[in-house]
């Protein structure tokens, strides 16, 4: 709704659009308890917001400049109501969301800022909620959002999704932001399960909007949607009743969401048209390989290793190399895994990443080199980013003193390529 209203008021009046929506919700809180919730609450909210928007347009007709692309159509009774209704119509709302998504991925903004802006404007998350779901504090998120809104306001109009060249230029940034949004939910640091699922669902919803657009439904977008859907299918099995993470190897696969697995497989098939192979294709194929295995013993590690090889070819990074080393250790034992980790080039990029030493510790523990394992886990503990991670590494340290320790039980250990490495806050000027 905010996206659509911003199309009417102009990007420089984003705050006005937010006020109108907030106003509609406030009206609902006043009216609904007395008169009952209407049959169609969202239509009620929409009508209330529409009328409020018309009030503002009529009152400030000459005092204010609104969306430049609508020009003078908002100034006269000939057109103001029909044009507002057109922009607020169901189909047009999707289009506005798309425009807003592209506007949020402005090249002047850092990736974390783009994600924060999407969460705030398109998903309706408060600064508090965003700060809780990510590694950054309230002040950093607030700064990102304020700056992001300023950049939006400077452009006055929302991104025009009707220009094919511009659309295709910015599409990768939008895909990337949605990918990061999903990862924040799936692998983020918030211990709150509901928040994480919500982030994953929002990412899937926005990707679906992207797939509605003829220029948006590229093979890479389908692959991204497949990756998200296949991975999200595991959400119900991913935490125990007290919110602790359960490793892929230990999950009750009967809890996996069948509908999502089927949908994800369908999306993966759709992504295979054309010659383009994006990193998303390969990550989706890896997720699919895990989904295909009824039991963890059935996992086709050779296939997964070759997919990581392909991923290294497209998008080489130490974190992908680490994931590949883990897959190798699954197939060929801890020694081979450790060799693969030794061979990682520029490991210094993993310096702040606790699961790097944790993986080393895990493999050392598996070949019964407890002294080395303990050192690695201590290093991991020193780099832990939150209470959940701290608790986990403490448990692994304790496991070094047990006669026959059980293997690690954290999802991050198994799929580090999905885990976001905390980026330096490059957007703070």
């Amino acid at each position: 709704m905010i996206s659509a209203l911003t199309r009417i008021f102009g990007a420089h009046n984003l705050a006005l659009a937010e006020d109108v929506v907030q106003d509609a919700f406030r009206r609902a809180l006043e009216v609904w308890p007395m008169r009952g919730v209407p049959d169609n609450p969202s239509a009620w909210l929409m009508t209330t917001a529409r009328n409020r928007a018309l009030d503002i347009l009529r009152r400030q007709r000459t005092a204010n400049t609104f969306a430049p692309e609508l020009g003078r159509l908002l100034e006269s009774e000939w057109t103001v109501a029909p044009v507002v209704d057109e922009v607020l119509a169901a189909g047009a709302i999707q289009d506005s969301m798309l425009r807003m998504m592209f506007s949020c991925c402005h090249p002047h903004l850092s990736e974390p800022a783009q994600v924060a802006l999407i969460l705030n404007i398109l998903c309706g998350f408060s600064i508090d909620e965003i700060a809780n779901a990510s590694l950054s504090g309230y002040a950093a998120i607030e700064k990102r959002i304020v700056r992001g809104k300023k950049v939006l306001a400077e452009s006055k109009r929302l991104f025009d999704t009707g220009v094919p060249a511009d659309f295709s230029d910015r599409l990768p940034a939008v895909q990337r932001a949605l990918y990061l949004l999903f990862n924040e939910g799936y692998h983020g640091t918030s211990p709150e399960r509901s928040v994480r699922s919500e982030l994953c669902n929002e990412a899937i919803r926005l990707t679906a909007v992207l797939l509605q657009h003829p220029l948006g439904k590229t093979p890479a977008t389908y692959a991204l949607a497949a990756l998200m859907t296949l991975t999200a299918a595991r959400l119900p099995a991913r935490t125990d009743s007290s919110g602790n993470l359960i490793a892929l190897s230990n999950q009750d696969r009967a809890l996996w969401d069948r509908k999502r697995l089927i949908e994800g497989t369908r999306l993966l098939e759709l992504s295979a048209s054309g010659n383009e192979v994006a990193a998303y294709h390969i990550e989706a194929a890896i997720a699919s390989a895990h989904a295909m295995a009824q039991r963890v013993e059935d996992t086709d590690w050779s296939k997964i290793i070759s997919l990581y090889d392909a991923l290294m070819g497209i998008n080489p990074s130490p974190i992908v190399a680490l994931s590949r080393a883990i897959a190798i250790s699954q197939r060929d034992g801890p020694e081979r895994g450790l060799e693969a980790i030794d061979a990682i080039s520029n490991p210094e990029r993993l310096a702040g990443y606790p699961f790097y030493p944790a993986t080393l510790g895990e493999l050392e523990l598996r070949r019964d080199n407890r002294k080395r394992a303990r050192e690695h886990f201590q290093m991991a503990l020193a780099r832990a980013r939150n209470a959940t991670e701290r608790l986990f590494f403490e448990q692994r340290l304790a496991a070094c003193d047990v006669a026959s320790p059980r293997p690690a039980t954290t999802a991050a250990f198994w799929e580090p390529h999905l885990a976001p490495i905390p980026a330096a806050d490059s957007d703070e000027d």
Partner: protein
Amino acid sequence: MSEFLFLFRGSNLQARSPEQMQESIQKWVAWFKELNEKGVIKEPGNPLDRSGKVVRGHGKDVHDGPYAEAKDLVNGYLLVETATIDQAVALARGCPIFEDGGSVEVRPIMKF
């Protein structure tokens, strides 16, 4: 550039079914969008209610009105800006009012 007032006369939106009204409104909006894109709208004007008051005569008497013949009743206005009256007339010809038997009066703004 010169300014021309369009006076819309004699089309009655209210006299028709909601569907017909909706269709007619869409045509009007489409026409306005066209004018907006051409950048010829000087003042977008407004539609007018069909009844009001008329103040008339030396006694400044107030009457209900205007009660003109329906086909002559002014029910809206718009100010455009074009180089010549012919261009303004060409724009007026795109107005959907003619489908309802109405007319557009194109009047140059007089400059003293």
